[in-house]
C-alpha cells in the first residue's frame, strides 16, 4: 500500500496544480496579514478563503484527478493488489497532498501571525474541510462513470454545502420563527461541515456576540470543551462515512 501511495503522491506533485494552489494560498494569506495591521481582521478575511475556496479546490481537483487516473486504477486492479488498498492509497495521496498544500500555504502564515486559539482552530478546520471534500469527490467520481456528470455532481455538492444549505436553513427559520428552533439549529449545523467549521472558527473570534440568541446557544454548546470535541468528531465522521461509502462502491465496481 505504501508503494501505491508513493506513486500517487509523486504523480500529484508532478502535476503543477497543487503547487499553484499552495502558492495561491501563500500569497493570499501573506498579503491579507500584511495589509491589515490587526491580525483578527486578517483572520476574518481568510475565513472565507478557508470556508469557500479550500473546499472548492479540494473537491474539483480530486474529482478530476480520479477520472484522469482511471487508467492507472485499471492497471492496478489487474495486479495482485487489494482494491481496498488501491482506493485507500488514492485517498491518502489526494488528502495528504492537498492538506500539505493547505498547511504550507495557509497554515504556516496563520500560525505565524495568529498563533493563539483562533489561528489553530482555523488551520484545523481547513485541514478537516480538505479531507471531507476529498471524500465527497471520491464518492462523486465512483458513482458516475461519466466524467462531465461526476464533476458536475461534485460542484453541485460544493454549491449545496457552501450556499444552498444556508438558504434552506434561513428559509425554515423564517417560516417557523414563532417556534423555538435552537435545538433544530444545533442539529442542522451537524449536517453541513462548512457551517460547522464556520461556527467553530467564529466562536473563537469573539464576535459570536453578534450572532444573536442562536449564537448564544451555539456558544453554550460548541464553546465548551465537550462541544468542541463533538464538533471535531462530527467532522471526522463526515470524512470517514463518505470515504467508506465510496470504498464500498469501488469494491463492487466493474472496470
Amino acid at each position, binding site marked *: 500500500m505504501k*508503494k*501505491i501511495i508513493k*506513486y500517487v503522491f509523486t*504523480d500529484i506533485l*508532478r502535476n503543477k496544480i497543487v503547487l499553484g494552489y499552495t502558492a495561491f494560498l501563500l500569497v493570499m494569506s501573506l498579503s491579507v496579514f500584511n495589509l491589515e495591521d490587526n491580525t483578527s481582521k486578517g483572520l476574518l478575511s481568510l475565513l472565507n478563503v478557508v470556508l469557500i475556496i479550500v473546499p472548492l479546490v479540494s473537491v474539483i481537483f480530486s474529482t478530476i484527478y480520479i477520472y484522469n*487516473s*482511471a*487508467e*492507472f486504477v*485499471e*492497471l*492496478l*486492479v*489487474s*495486479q*495482485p*493488489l*487489494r*482494491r481496498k488498498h488501491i482506493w485507500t492509497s488514492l485517498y491518502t495521496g489526494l488528502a495528504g497532498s492537498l492538506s500539505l498544500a493547505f498547511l504550507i500555504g495557509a497554515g504556516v502564515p496563520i500560525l505565524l501571525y495568529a498563533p493563539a486559539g483562533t489561528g489553530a482552530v482555523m488551520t484545523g478546520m481547513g485541514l478537516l474541510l480538505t479531507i471531507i471534500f476529498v471524500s465527497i469527490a471520491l464518492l462523486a467520481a465512483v458513482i458516475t462513470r461519466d466524467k462531465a456528470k461526476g464533476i458536475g455532481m461534485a460542484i453541485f455538492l460544493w454549491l449545496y454545502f457552501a450556499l444552498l444549505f444556508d438558504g434552506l436553513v434561513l428559509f425554515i427559520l423564517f417560516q417557523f420563527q414563532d417556534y423555538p428552533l435552537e435545538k433544530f439549529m444545533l442539529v442542522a449545523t451537524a449536517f453541513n461541515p462548512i457551517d460547522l467549521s464556520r461556527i467553530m472558527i467564529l466562536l473563537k473570534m469573539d464576535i459570536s456576540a453578534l450572532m444573536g440568541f442562536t449564537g448564544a446557544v451555539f456558544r453554550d454548546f460548541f464553546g465548551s470543551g465537550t462541544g468542541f470535541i463533538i464538533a471535531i468528531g462530527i467532522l471526522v465522521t463526515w470524512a470517514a462515512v463518505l470515504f467508506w461509502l465510496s470504498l464500498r462502491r469501488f469494491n*463492487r*465496481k*466493474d*472496470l
Partner: protein
Amino acid sequence: MIIANNVSKKFGRLKALDNVSVTCNNGECIALIGPNGSGKTTFIKSILGMVMPDQGFITFNGKNILHDWQYRRYIGYMPQIGRYPDNMTIGQVFNMMKDIRTGSGNNDTDESLVDGFGLKPLLQKRMRTLSGGTRQKVSASLAFLFKPDVLILDEPTAGLDPVAAEVLKEKILFEKSCGRLILITSHILSELDDLITQVIYMQDGQVKFHKKLEELQKDTGEQKLAKAIAAVMKRSV
C-alpha cells in the same frame, strides 16, 4: 486451474455472460473465439476480478477469487487496449510494476520481450506519445515480465507489426512448451492455428462449445481453424 461455474453478468439489459461454465487446466492453450460483443472480454475481466459476476463463481487453483487478490500474482494479463498513466515513461511503468509485484516474492523477471520488441531505447518516452502498436508491445512485455503461470492475452496481435507479431507468437509457443495455461482471444484465426490446443466458442454471452482442436477438426472435416469455425457458424445458422 481456472474453473468458472455458471457465471452470469448483466450490463443493464444486456446479458454479457449467460451461465458460462468453463474449466481450464495447466499446459493448455485455449482460444476464446466469438463474434464482437459475445462476452469474451467480459469473461476475461471477470477472471481477473475487474468485473464482478452477478451470479456464479470462479475458482483459481481451487480457491474462490471473490475477495481474493493474491491469485493475480500468477496471472499475466495483456488487455485489448492497454491504458497507462499518460505522464509516466515506459521505464517508469516497468519499474512501478516491478516494484508492486516484487513485493510478492518473485524477484527475477523475464525481459526477453522487452528486448525482442526493441523497447530498451524507448524507455524514456512518455506513454501518451506512444503509438498504438508500441503500447501493445508494452502491454505484452508486462504480461510476460513476471513469468506467470497463467497468461491471458486479449487480442494480442491487434495493432502489432508483422515482425513484432512473430516475436510474440514465438514467445507464446515457448511459454506453452513450459506448461503454462494460455488464454487467447483473437479474430485473426489463421495465426492461432499452430498455437492453440483447445477452442472455446462464445456467442451472445453463452459458451457454444469447448472442444479440443483435433475434435473440432474431426467434427467439421476441416484442417484450418478458420474454416472449421466458419463451418460451425454456418451450421448453427
